């Protein structure tokens, strides 16, 4: 079952912040985040493996709330280069050895 991402789309001005949420109906083992720019392949951002884990990558960070079965991606002081579609991929506990991706959040950063 696909994780649910919200919002589906967001438009920002440079320098603004954004939060993208990813929630699952099943207990999660890990959450992965990818970004896909228009016309390109998805590119890995980060993996969160433990409940409560937080990671950062430049001004992009993420948290994983194992209890709530959800993860959030935080984009701080957004840059034009952050534009693209963000996907979360989840691996459920006692599940198969592969990810299930959400439907994506389209992020557009304007000057």
């Amino acid at each position, binding site marked *: 079952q*696909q994780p649910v991402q919200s919002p589906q789309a967001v438009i920002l001005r440079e320098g603004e912040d954004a939060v993208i949420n990813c929630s699952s109906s099943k207990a999660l*083992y*890990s959450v*992965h985040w*990818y970004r896909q720019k228009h016309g*390109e*392949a*998805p*590119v*890995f951002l980060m*993996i969160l*493996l433990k409940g409560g884990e937080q990671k950062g990558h430049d001004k992009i960070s993420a948290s994983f709330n194992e209890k709530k079965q959800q993860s959030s991606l935080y984009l701080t002081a957004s840059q034009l280069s952050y534009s693209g579609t963000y*996907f979360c*991929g989840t*691996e459920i506990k006692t599940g*198969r*050895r*592969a*990810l*299930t*991706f*959400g*439907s*994506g959040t389209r992020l557009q950063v304007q000057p």
Partner: protein
Amino acid sequence: DVKVTQSSRYLVKRTGEKVFLECVQDMDHENMFWYRQDPGLGLRLIYFSYDVKMKEKGDIPEGYSVSREKKERFSLILESASTNQTSMYLCASSLFADSGEQYFGPGTRLTVT
């Protein structure tokens, strides 16, 4: 740098044809995946393989089959192409099946007419 290549960027086939999509990775990864990407639906897993000659169904395997005879190559086969299989197909590979970073190929945009 990990490289995942796909045989074609664009492909046009007729309904009923047998279609082969090829994917090759050069990093000796154990695991390979085939996804299809459609607007508003994200990346949906078709099949994956965690070893040579091993395969597992993903979420939408109907109408597809796969072949992995060599570690570096994973093929997706559409036995009899249909118009509803028009889509972007993405191949990926990873060192670890579950918690490993996936590296994606550039994709093949398949149109079935």
